């Protein structure tokens, strides 16, 4: 059995205790909502996109340490990136979470930085949904912001 310390790395607990970019953004920022039917967690992502760049991003909602910290780290990472960069970044993250779709190109050279601490989640398959909740909700926000 994988140890609990694989899951609750210090950096994860840090983002859980002190989440970054928590809050809301007023319209015209896009707001999308996601939820995890298993545990009842929900999350809202606020996205301010202009000229193809993520200017600002915030999140609110309730969730476990994994979903909250993963979302917090995600917001830090994507702010300031172009939409294409963000999409490539999400693909790289999902690949780490063993969730790549068949034939989807993944740029392995992209560095995930702190987010690599979430790799341990893979050993706890039930929690993968927690770790990806914010990211999937972000993708929906991107779709909405760019349509």
């Amino acid at each position: 059995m994988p140890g609990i310390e694989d899951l609750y790395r210090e950096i994860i607990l840090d983002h859980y205790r002190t989440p970054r970019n928590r809050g809301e953004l007023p319209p015209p920022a896009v707001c999308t909502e996601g939820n995890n039917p298993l545990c009842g967690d929900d999350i809202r992502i606020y996205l301010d996109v202009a000229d193809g760049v993520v200017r600002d991003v915030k999140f609110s909602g309730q969730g476990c340490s994994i979903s909250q910290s993963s979302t917090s780290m995600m917001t830090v990472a994507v702010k300031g990136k172009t939409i294409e960069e963000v999409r490539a970044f999400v693909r790289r993250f999902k690949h780490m979470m063993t969730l790549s779709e068949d034939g989807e190109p993944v740029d392995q050279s992209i560095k995930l930085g702190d987010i690599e601490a979430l790799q341990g989640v893979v050993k706890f398959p039930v929690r993968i949904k927690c770790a990806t909740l914010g990211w999937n909700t972000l993708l929906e926000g991107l779709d909405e912001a760019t349509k």
Partner: protein
Amino acid sequence: MTGANSVLDAAAIRREFPILTSEINGKPVVYLDSANTSQKPNVVIDAMTTFMRESYAPINRSAYTLAASATEKYEGARAAVAKFINANSTNEIVFTKNATEALNLVAYSWGRANLQRGDVVVLTHMEHHANIVPWQMLQQERGIELRWVPLTSDFQLDLSSLPTLLAGAKVFSFTAMSNVLGTINPVEKLCAAAHAAGALAIVDACQSVPHSPTDVRALGADFAMFSSHKMCGPSGVGVLWGREALLEAMPPFLGGGNMISEVRLDGFKCAELPAKFEAGTPPITEVVGLGAAIEFLNGVGMANIRQHEIAMSSYALEMLTSRFGDDITIHGPRNPELRGATFSFAFRGIHPHDLSQVLDQSNVCVRAGHHCAKPLMKIIGANATARASFYLYNTTQDADALADALDSASDIF
């Protein structure tokens, strides 16, 4: 070792359950998720194995010895179920795949035959999704009205508004015990109130039949349903009990083999009860396994099980509050006589999902989430809770193991 006031030897019972005597990573399994699904004793596993090895055959269709004896075993289990809940006749016992199918059967068959736009179905705020969604589907389709019995601040049904809610209602469908709060509802009284208002009384007995003696006649209910897998029996089979006259008058639900007496190109005639509601090949081995589970439970004694769970509740409530004080919030009644041994709780602000993960390190198995009762969760103001539920095989040691594991969770968060 099994709680000072318990009338049964849970430690001995536990030895009948292979998983409960097994270890994961050298540590015993502390199974506290029986409100979700229960473990299976040797006698049930063996009954199924022996049946598949020696007696498996089609039922109700073929006449050879093997088939006749399989049919006898299958129908014998039906008789055991009827007796277990004091039904009037085996015609009142319909085997479904689970309690959820049984609730849907009633909503589809009785509901579609009897409920029209504007008709009122009364539910409660503590229902499981299985007793909500089938009615909401009917609401979408037919425009029936749903009314909800609210809760009091001490997690009971608030009966003050019941007469108003029931006025003009066609159905009152409610759980005998909340799978989240542990609250045991006054089923007889609620059935009487339904009948006084001219409504049908449907009892979701999923959380009561496995844990205490059941007498459907004494309850005065019209329908009741429960699942084998929560009462030491196999997965894949549930029971719908209904008053014979009601079942007789209902249109069929699933169509196919066994539920017909005649099929022509231009139409079909239904079979007699209970075949009418058992379309297709039933869960044969599973029904036989349920029969063995009932024999097992009868051997222990349902009244003893209830006494044991009262003792477990007392112990757990006292021990947890004395060890953790305000750090633990238990969502449910404090009086062990008014509740089952199922405890939803919040602990030191740790998210239930994280909590269950940490408890799992000590092989303490609790469920974390909404427990298929999202409306209730919203009402008690939680997105999710952790839930520890005790059964006849749990001991005070299991409660202690839970508390110890909670301590270790505090170390991490």
